């Protein structure tokens, strides 16, 4: 039983401690949680459930925010 699991976060492999939640993953890469939305394996994770949603090895997580766009 490994203490570390590997996820795919925004297309890149990311190792996190086992038992990490979505909120924990965001903390790894985002300076602030403002203006951010998260998709876990193609489904939206509502902000109110970030703390209670665990991630597992192989999960695909997209962390999106506003970027310049027409």
């Amino acid at each position, binding site marked *: 039983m490994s203490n570390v699991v590997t996820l795919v976060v925004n297309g890149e492999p990311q190792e996190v401690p086992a038992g990490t939640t979505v909120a924990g993953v965001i903390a790894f890469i985002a300076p602030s949680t403002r203006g951010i939305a998260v998709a876990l394996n193609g489904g*939206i994770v509502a902000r109110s459930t970030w703390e209670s949603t665990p991630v597992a090895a192989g999960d695909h997580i997209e962390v999106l*925010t506003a970027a310049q766009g027409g």
Partner: protein
Amino acid sequence: MPAPFLDAPFTIAGEVVGSRLILGSGGIPSLEVLERAIIASGTSVVTVAMRRLDPAAPGSLLDVLARLGVRVLPNTAGCFTAAEAVLTARLAREALETNWVKLEVIGDEITLLPDGSELLRAAEELVGDGFVVLPYTNDDPVLARRLEHAGCAAVMPAGAPIGSGLGIGNPHAIAMIAEAAGVPVVLDAGIGTASDAALAMELGCAGVMVASAVTRCRNPETMARAMALAVEAGRAARAAGPIPRRYHAEASSSFHNMAGLAREAAGETSLAPSGQRRR
């Protein structure tokens, strides 16, 4: 001082938007230039795309937009299917706390023109989910009507392909869309320069959206100002009721009480056949 042109407020989904010029933030060289362009444009709404968070990105686009007090309008740029666009819209709502979305579902990367059937499907689903949907659509009056009937809060027909700067390829279609629509028509895509924006308003559009024409030109701040003036000028001209187009001239100086000098002008003869001489 000339009397100002008193225009009705620009509203979408019952909300007063403000400026009739919507600005896209894509393609701007820096956040500093974007800020100056937004101020110069007087816009109330700025579009953004939803992209992967880049921790190395310099500055915060959202901070700039918040400081300027403009509404952030997320788009679904880059989506090729209804499913992808619907998911992107929902993520945008989650991230930006707005139920407004500029819905884009494109058909291919060459034209970036909307895929009408996917667009309509996505619009129906998002309207059903409580979104205020502003779809980027083709210059097709029938599709525009379909989108309106689906509950879209506006329609945003393309004047020409995104970023092309070709202007309004089919002004008749845009006029037909504007004439028939019960929701605001905002010309989107294809604007190259200020006269294109003025034309859109003269054709009956309620607003104009520009991105590349401002963000990718040599001086975005100056072009932003030019676009604002053009939108106002076109809107005022439309409201003023332009003269109908006609084939022949109509003298602006009356021939009434014209002096009888022609007979006295020795040695000069008119080239005009007698039947075409005005009397």
